């Protein structure tokens, strides 16, 4: 491991902690981020010659805190903030009940901020992703993204969004919103920004570790792991997306799958992410269709949506026969969605009506916007 790698690894672990603590103490987001960044820069400059300190995270925290003290002194702000920062000797044993990083996550994902601001703020403040990278990923200019971040931080200060992890009913209400931000981050990573998927996994890991009483945090992490385990197998040599059944299973990351299975084994609950993870787990091992169908039944109760209903119909068709699937599909309104028509075509084919199935596959092909998918659908039509 080079010194640069060591700094990177230490930074990844220490950064959110430093930022989160400095925000709590100073209440100033930009100051916290600047000081954390400066500490990292200094580490990269010093460690190659001085050697890596025994406790890299502690070293970074001390440097960042000293920078913050300097800056606050220079700005001559209230004594109170300084007083809180200065005691470096045996820190008062007043063990914080809540990890500062958790406060930071909940504040960045506060529903009073727009969803796009939540995602951007999470990437910038917690994951330290440079603003231009976030801008590129969300197809806006650097200055638009900078404004979005500035506005979000201003709202936190102006509307006084608290730096706190909610408790009781509020926690139950707010956690799904936090998980949704991570999910969005992950899917964005899935669609072309792999680094975001890695960040989402890291955050889900942190959330699970910090909130052991919340099964959905573990469920979300497991779901990410199953999906990410197929990252190498998802595209063919020409870059076309491959559906599940056409992927080379040998390229699935078995270590990730094993970790996901371990996580699920310890979860006793059936929140929406846990259910999706259980479905993904079944597909990742040997698909147990009646089990998958039961998971979709529950998911349809918790989070009804046309896409869930479509998947539910497909699962039922494989578990209990194409007629069962077709009966469910009839009740779903998906309009001219190529995958819905393709699913119907598949069920009709399995029920034996080859002529109608071939026509449906051709119709699905006509509706599809992907060249590879269109070819696959036409092939199935011709095979009948």
């Amino acid at each position, binding site marked *: 491991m080079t010194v640069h790698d060591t700094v990177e690894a230490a930074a990844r672990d220490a950064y959110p902690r430093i930022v989160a603590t400095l925000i709590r103490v100073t209440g100033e987001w930009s100051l916290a981020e600047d000081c954390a960044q400066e500490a990292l820069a200094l580490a990269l400059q010093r460690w190659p010659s001085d050697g890596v300190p025994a406790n890299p995270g502690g070293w970074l925290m001390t440097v960042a805190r000293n920078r913050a003290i300097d800056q606050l002194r220079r700005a001559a702000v209230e004594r109170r903030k300084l007083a809180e920062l200065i005691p470096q000797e045996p820190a008062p044993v007043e063990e914080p009940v809540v990890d500062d990083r958790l406060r930071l996550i909940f504040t960045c994902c506060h529903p009073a901020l727009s969803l796009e601001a939540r995602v951007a703020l999470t990437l910038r403040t917690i994951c330290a992703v440079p603003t231009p990278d976030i801008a590129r990923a969300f197809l806006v200019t650097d200055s638009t993204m900078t404004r979005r971040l500035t506005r979000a931080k201003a709202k936190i200060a102006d*509307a006084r969004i608290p730096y706190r992890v909610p408790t009781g009913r509020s926690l139950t209400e707010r956690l799904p919103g936090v998980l949704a931000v991570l999910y969005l981050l992950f899917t964005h990573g899935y669609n072309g920004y792999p680094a975001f998927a890695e960040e989402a996994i890291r955050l889900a890991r942190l959330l699970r570790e910090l909130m052991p009483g919340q099964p959905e945090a573990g469920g979300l992490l497991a779901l990410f792991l199953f999906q990410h385990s197929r990252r190498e197998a998802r595209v063919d040599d020409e870059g076309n997306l491959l559906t599940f059944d056409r992927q080379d299973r040998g390229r699935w990351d078995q270590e990730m799958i094993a970790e996901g299975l371990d996580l699920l084994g310890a979860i006793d609950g059936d929140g929406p992410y846990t259910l999706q993870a259980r479905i993904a787990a079944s597909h990742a091992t040997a698909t147990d269709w009646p089990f998958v169908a039961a998971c979709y039944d529950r998911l349809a109760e918790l989070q009804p949506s046309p896409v869930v209903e479509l998947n539910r119909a497909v699962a039922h068709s494989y578990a209990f026969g194409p007629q069962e699937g077709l009966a469910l599909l009839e009740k779903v309104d998906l309009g001219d969605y190529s995958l819905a028509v393709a699913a119907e075509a598949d069920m009709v084919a399995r029920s034996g009506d080859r002529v109608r199935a071939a026509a449906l596959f051709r119709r699905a092909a006509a509706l599809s916007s992907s060249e590879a998918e269109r070819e696959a659908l036409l092939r199935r039509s011709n095979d009948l």
Partner: protein
Amino acid sequence: MKYMMFVCTDTEPDTDPSPEADIEVWVEENDTRGRRLDGSVLGSRSSATTVRVRNGQLLVSDGPFAETKEFIVGYDLLECADLDEAIEVARAHPMARGGRLELRPLVDL
């Protein structure tokens, strides 16, 4: 922190048939706890008068500034520790279901 809470109508009110909160109880509770400093229902929109001055000339016109489907019917001035507390106060207001509430922090100048 002071928040101005605008009480507004909404074209899509809650359809939940459970009984709605009692405004008297809400006012009483928040007044006692010092979280509501002031508040009132506004007169109808037809009683509104809009005033502008352009190039030194006074322009007075009948009616509200903007004709919209959703409009402000009242306000409450809240004193809360932070936005989360204000949100909790707002959610208990009957118009959280019958209409919508908008929380705006007051700026200290």
